[in-house]
């Protein structure tokens, strides 16, 4: 399980890792908005350089960043095909029977791809440098003001962190049940659609049974240790903003501001 996967946390100790999760979440949201402003390639270069700088500071291995793009290949090809058929602007580059490719289609696809690349890099900056639990803690802090509107911020954060904690266990369990069923002659790979659906059922039913058992055990353990949903709790980890966080937020805001101006002037 040691592959480099998009969204995985990379345990390193860099200035970016040490930033407050709240600052990182807000900065990510600001950057996402900035990326979607229509500034043309000039803006993308500025944003790209900033993001690249952050990735370098966080000591992200090049391979890790690239691996995040692999699942996107199919989507990019799909986008390109759609654009070729729908956008008929710019110069005609190629005409072959009914197929006509215009420069506008390529340019448009290129912009979208660049935006996607930037978005993935920004989110990688966040997820790869922040522990899942810190991330949920950050979300909880940020959702706190919504408590007034009866948004159960703490419960949401608790649910996310427990889900994150149990994902590897559930995957392991799935593998175990699959092997157990295979040894009893269930075929997951071949056969007609109907047989395949039946095979999947033989996996899902025990998986759910086990998951409910786990949930029951966990609820008991939490209750026995004094957890009461909605009740006041103290927190072991207390978040505090440091100078680095202010710097990050200032840079991100300045970038967003200049992108807004840029897109209006253009």
């Amino acid at each position, binding site marked *: 399980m040691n592959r480099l996967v998009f969204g995985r946390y990379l345990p390193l100790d860099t200035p970016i890792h040490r930033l407050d999760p709240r600052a990182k979440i807000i900065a990510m949201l600001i950057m996402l908005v900035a990326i979607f402003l229509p500034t043309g390639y000039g803006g993308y270069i500025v944003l790209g350089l900033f993001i690249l700088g952050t990735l370098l500071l966080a000591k992200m291995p090049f391979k890790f960043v690239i691996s995040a793009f692999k699942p996107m290949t199919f989507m990019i090809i799909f986008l390109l095909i759609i654009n070729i058929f729908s956008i008929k602007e710019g110069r005609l580059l190629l005409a072959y029977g009914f197929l006509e490719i215009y420069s506008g289609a390529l340019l448009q696809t290129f912009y979208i791809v660049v935006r996607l690349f930037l978005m993935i890099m920004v989110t990688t900056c966040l997820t790869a440098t922040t*522990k*899942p*639990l810190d991330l949920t803690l950050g979300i909880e802090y940020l959702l706190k003001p919504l408590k007034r509107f009866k948004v159960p911020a703490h419960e949401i954060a608790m649910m996310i*962190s*427990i889900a*994150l*904690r149990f994902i*590897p*266990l559930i995957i392991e369990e799935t593998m175990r049940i699959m092997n157990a069923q295979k040894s009893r002659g269930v075929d997951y790979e071949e056969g007609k659609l109907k047989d395949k659906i039946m095979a999947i059922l033989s996996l899902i039913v025990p998986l759910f049974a086990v998951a409910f058992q*786990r949930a029951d*055990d*966990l609820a*008991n*353990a*939490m*209750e*026995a*240790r*004094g*957890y*009461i949903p909605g*009740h*006041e*709790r*103290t*927190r*072991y*980890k*207390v978040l505090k903003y440091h100078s680095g966080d202010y710097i990050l937020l200032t840079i991100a805001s300045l970038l967003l501001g200049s992108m807004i101006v840029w897109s209006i002037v253009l």
Partner: protein
Amino acid sequence: MKLIEVKDLSFSYDENIPVLSDISFALEEGTYTVIVGHNGSGKSTLAKLLAGLLAPNKGEIKIGGTALNADTIESMRAHIGIVFQNPDNQFIGSTVRDDIAFGLENHLVPSVKMDEIINTYAAYVSMQDYLDKEPSSLSGGQKQRVAIAGVLAMQPSILLLDEATSMLDPKGRKEVGELIHALHQKKQLTILSITHDIEETRFADNVIVLNKGKIYRFAKAEKLFENPDDLKNIGLDIPYIYELRAKYAKYGIHLRSRDIEGMAEELWQLNLKK
């Protein structure tokens, strides 16, 4: 003083099938009690009742003189620590540190005091070098030790163990068994351990034998195993060491040791005297 008092306790999930009926016993502070019985004898249900996770149909449980009920349970939680069977399903935090902190957070311990408490109790269970490890990188025995630390951090008056060693490999079982023994010996903690590992009874002060939802025997370990057939009648084994003692007793040799090494010692000294 009697720390735990259970009186006429009855419970059933389904009206027609009683799980526990008329259970009564009392345990002194600082004692180590083992509850044994077959699967379906009602052991785990009894643990859940004692931890206040289930409410009895009839009867009463008193902890330190306070009856457990809907009004008192919230304030009593910290007094009753329970460790369950499955090491994975009770690990709530994402690291050892966070997991021990979970109970403290619920009991409103101020954040600034938590680190000290966490370090103390992690050291109790010899997990101080693993504080930042994730559960997936720990063995079953280590996870159970963390669970025990998490419970002890709340400073309970009773430690309940619901088959806490049954899912562990022999090494983990030995580690956790020794830890529990040490907690009883050194910290005078009141321990109530539910198990089907009959060997665990060797270190216990009292043994409660449950059979079909009723108390079959409640006695000192020494007394209970004097007559091996008594337990064998309901299909339970007795610890090897007591089996051996019973066999020697038939020849008029009365041994007193609770472990194999001690018994070997006694036996060769016996030879010398002849």
